[in-house]
């Protein structure tokens, strides 16, 4: 017997699965996947490699019909997850076919900045898919390892929450409209700045030179050109759309070099950095590119202007490997 009745409404269903321990994870995910497979629905599971391994075992033959992807890879930069779901839905959901997905973007070990962006990602999923075709996305949250505040935020970003095999509507879900909004909360101030420069329309080459110099000094020579390319696009946006000038600041965090651009522009398209540009379109591409080149991109639109931070790790992805759990 299935514990997962099919959703009645013909719309995107964004559901959090709160689990404690392997048994609850399996009980919450395996029937969900199996029901989808047996109904002929395409299923994509984006999880850690160890969870994928376990799900394969638990699903046995049904695993052959399931697509699996490593969340540590897909979601290293959480802004790349929505495009991955878009690819899945457009590739496999032709003619309004139902689909299912499992995605666990938040785990213990995410840095504070990554966690904030993962939470933003969870909210933006409602904006990205809330008006489109019906499909069902289940997002597991490990209640044993994650802080209570993280679980609380999951209840705000998901319309449905399953706990102890019982599903209910979240009474603090922020709703579709407000889901695009949580990018007007200021980012924490950095520690020690190691560079600052005000720039105008004729200073792009100087901006690039400064970022290249800091990338060299931070020991990320191999990725300096990528960071310079991404930052140049952000600074170009300031010049063209953000009042004609901006301020570049540079600092180091534990594992990354961070470059920030502030300008006086306003930003009102929350998905602009995660919509894959069509070849023929004249759509903006700079922030999309930044997300593909950098480890993390943080965008905030505040009353006094826009802030964009680009993070480049010294050792890309190393700490993103999900540590195998001992049970």
């Amino acid at each position, binding site marked *: 017997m299935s514990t997962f009745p099919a959703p009645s409404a013909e719309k995107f269903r964004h559901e959090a699965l709160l689990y404690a321990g392997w048994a609850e994870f399996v009980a919450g995910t395996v029937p969900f996947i199996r029901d989808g497979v047996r109904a002929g629905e395409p299923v994509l599971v984006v999880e850690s490699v160890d969870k994928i391994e376990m799900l394969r075992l638990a699903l046995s033959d049904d695993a052959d019909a399931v697509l699996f992807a490593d969340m540590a890879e897909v979601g290293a930069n959480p802004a790349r997850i929505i495009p991955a779901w878009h690819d899945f839905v457009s590739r496999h959901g032709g003619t309004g076919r139902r689909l299912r997905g499992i995605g666990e973007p938040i785990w213990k070990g995410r840095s504070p900045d990554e966690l904030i962006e993962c939470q933003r990602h969870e909210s933006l999923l409602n904006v990205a898919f809330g008006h489109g075709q019906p499909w069902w996305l289940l997002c597991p949250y490990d209640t044993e390892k994650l802080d209570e505040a993280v679980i609380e935020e999951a209840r705000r970003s998901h319309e449905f929450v399953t706990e102890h095999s019982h599903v209910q509507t979240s009474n603090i879900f922020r709703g579709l409209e407000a889901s695009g909004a949580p990018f007007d909360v200021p980012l924490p101030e950095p520690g020690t700045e190691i560079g600052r420069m005000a720039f105008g*329309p*004729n200073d*792009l*080459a100087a901006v*690039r030179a400064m970022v290249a110099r800091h990338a060299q000094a931070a020991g990320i020579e191999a990725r300096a*050109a*990528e960071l*310079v*390319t991404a930052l*140049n*696009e952000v600074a*170009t946006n300031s*010049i*063209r759309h953000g009042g004609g000038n901006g301020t570049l600041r540079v600092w180091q965090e534990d594992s990354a070099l961070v470059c920030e651009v502030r300008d006086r522009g306003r930003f009102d398209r929350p998905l602009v950095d995660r919509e*894959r*540009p*069509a*070849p023929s379109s004249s759509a903006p*591409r*700079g922030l*999309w*590119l930044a997300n*593909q*080149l950098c480890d993390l991109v943080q965008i905030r639109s505040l009353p006094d202007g826009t802030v964009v931070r680009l993070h480049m790790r010294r050792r890309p992805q190393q700490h993103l490997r999900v540590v195998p759990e001992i049970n």
Partner: protein
Amino acid sequence: MYADKHLVVTRTEAPIGLYFAGEIDVTNSHAVAESLCNAAMDDADIHLDLSGLSFCDISGIRSLVDAAEARQTGRLMLHGLPDLLQTVMNVIGWSDLPNLQICNCRGAR
């Protein structure tokens, strides 16, 4: 053909085309269209040697795409693309256009 503080564009004869050296960004990406226009080349394929570019932003790539799409016949053949530039063209969805051919060589000259 064109020169500013960051970019020099010169004409090449064999193959017929243009050689770009330096940096292209939003302040000088108009040079791509201007140089092609000034070169007044006929409808055959035009070869652009980009091996001397140390930087090219999206506006520069957009200029190449626009120039390729504006051609009635003949393609723009891009030679000597730096690796990152090729990656960027892929990522932003402009690597597979009918009139814009990326040649995997080290430069046409």
